[in-house]
């Protein structure tokens, strides 16, 4: 068997790490919205992937079909999903949470919303895979690394958005209110935090994040009506790794999953598609040791 030389090994590792970081940045952004909604309302939003898909299709039409700037398309995706999220919270989740103390009620409602959005997206946007023109052309080529410029840009934008989100949560008034809600809902209410208002803002923000990341990634991976479910599953995995309801955990979970995927697909490819088998097996062992994930609850 031919052993790789040192430069080959360095090149291999650099590519694996770059792929992992890029995947991790987009995964972390996907998981943020999901964990935010869980932290604020204790709701497992099964419709998160469908919200991502809706955001992707809005960007596809605004940027890809109508020819408006990409940034405007992202704004449209974010605004539409924020409005959708606010309406879903106000008219669906809020009444259910008020009337039922059973957690299954909100889970069932979230699943129903997911099915509804799936069917609606298929009806409105059709069954085909959709894509938009590249936002940046060209590929970065060096002796150690190959990375298209658009992926580098999207990765950087994702990291900037994560930082902005964390700053918003840390220093803004709504951010502080939402953190208080996540830590102790009753105590926050007693301290004068308007629970209904900030729950709605939080849900809208979570949905907006899903929409924006869907729009952002349509430039790389395109979008089709059937990917909502798998996106949700992946987002849940990241949240489980990092710890449900913890923003830092979601980010860590995203980067860990991205890196595991990148390493697994590069190192284990000769053995067939066992990367996810290994990841799931590792996740089972990990959760049996740390059921609350890396950072667990409470959030803050």
């Amino acid at each position, binding site marked *: 068997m031919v052993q790789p030389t040192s430069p080959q090994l360095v090149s291999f590792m650099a590519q694996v790490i770059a792929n992992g970081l*890029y995947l991790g940045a987009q995964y972390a952004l996907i998981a943020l919205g999901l964990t935010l909604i869980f932290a604020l309302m204790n709701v497992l939003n099964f419709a998160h992937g469908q919200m991502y898909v809706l955001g992707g299709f809005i960007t596809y039409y605004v940027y890809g079909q109508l020819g408006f700037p990409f940034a405007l398309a992202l704004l449209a995706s974010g605004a539409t999903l924020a409005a959708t999220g606010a309406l879903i919270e106000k008219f669906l989740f809020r009444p259910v949470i008020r009337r039922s103390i059973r957690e299954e009620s909100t889970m069932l409602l979230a699943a129903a919303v997911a099915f509804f959005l799936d*069917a609606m997206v*298929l009806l409105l946007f*059709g069954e*085909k895979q959709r894509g938009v023109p590249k936002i940046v052309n060209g590929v970065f080529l060096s002796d150690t690394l190959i990375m298209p410029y658009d992926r580098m840009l999207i990765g950087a934008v994702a990291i900037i958005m994560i930082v902005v989100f964390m700053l918003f949560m840390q220093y803004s008034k709504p951010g502080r209110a939402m953190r208080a809600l996540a830590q102790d809902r009753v105590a926050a209410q007693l301290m004068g935090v308007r629970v209904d208002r900030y729950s709605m803002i939080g849900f809208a923000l979570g949905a907006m994040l899903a929409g924006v990341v869907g729009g952002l990634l349509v430039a790389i991976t*395109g979008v*089709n009506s059937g990917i909502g479910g*798998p996106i949700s599953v992946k987002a849940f995995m990241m949240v489980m790794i990092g710890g449900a309801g913890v923003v830092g955990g979601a980010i860590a979970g995203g980067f860990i999953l991205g890196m595991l995927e990148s390493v697994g697909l590069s190192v284990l490819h000769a053995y067939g598609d066992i990367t996810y088998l290994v990841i799931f097996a590792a996740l089972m062992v990990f959760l049996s040791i740390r059921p609350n994930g890396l950072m667990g609850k409470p959030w803050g």
Partner: protein
Amino acid sequence: MSTRRTAMQLVALAAVSALSIVATGISSADAADKELKIGFVGVTSGPAAAWGTSNVRSMEVRAEWLNEAGGVRIGDTTYNIKIVTFDDQKDPKRAIAGMEKMAQEGIHYVVGPNVDDGAAAVRPVAEKAGIIYFPYAFPKELYVKPASNAVLGMIASYQSGPAIYKYLKENKGVKTIAFIAANESDPLSQRDSGVAAAKALGLQIVAEKDTYQNDTRDFTPVLTPIVKLKPDLLVLSGVAPGNAPLLIRAARELGFQGLISTETAHDAKVLEEGAGDLANGFISVGGASTPEIRSPIMEEFIERYTKKFGEYNDESNTKVYALEYILETLKANPKAVDSVEEFKKTVETFSAPNPFMKGDNKLKYVGSTSFGQKRQVAVPMVVNEYHNGEFKTLFIGEVD
């Protein structure tokens, strides 16, 4: 006053009754005598929705067109065609439920399922209930004896693959080949048959075990190790239409310079949007898809499809055939409307003009070489090359 009102009511009632009798008479004179239900069981939701949706839409457009023209004359009866659909969500259990529903509705002819496990799952139901079905699935056991109720609705990968590799070996100097497939039964079985065909042709296989999850959205990590092997040809075995542009784009962006091909049908618009110029040169299998071989009826079909659904799907170039085969076979033997055994007898000798192709091409059943019996529709094996938003015919082959 009341007598007058009653009289007026009676006159109005008589007028309405007379009008309705006349109207009924007119409509029954114009419309078909009976309804013929043709079923569809396949996937119309989820990531593989494009496969089944193109089936359903093709069937609906053609049925609507035939009904508009007065229906389909089979023997002494004229039928209106009704398409009954069932979304199996690519789940074999649901496919069985779908086929049972078809049986309950008294349907004898069903198009679908779209994938291997679904097609295998419905076999006992179809055979018990007397249903002939047209799967888009390749397992040979569905078509070789003792199986007799399934008719393959397209060209199988083990039929098109060898033809494509041979062409590329002889005309493009391909010597090394790499395979990548989704980790699902259809793509894996297509990959295995592709590997066998490539070995038989003496091609050097540099990668044959690389797979990916069907819901992968970014293929850069998956393709990085394969691209480094620099094969002359990268085969995307059984690739779904939604994944093809993503794989092509990732491979090209990683610097892959070789040829890329697949044995499944694809849509030019999807490739254009998803991969743009990077998809140029992508080789795939299509139906009567290119303008060079399309008949005016095929042109009108595309026009009607586009008008009804807003956008044509190139996969329908193949999917348009199944309903036509069913109806033309029934026309050839009207007893087959209620008896699939009669249908099976007719299959042996059936031949009718192919309305979708120019020239004197015929609709006929084939498959003797691959299955030992005629259990496959004869559709042209058009191998396409994608270029700037459209497919160009590379070569046209036939299956015996």
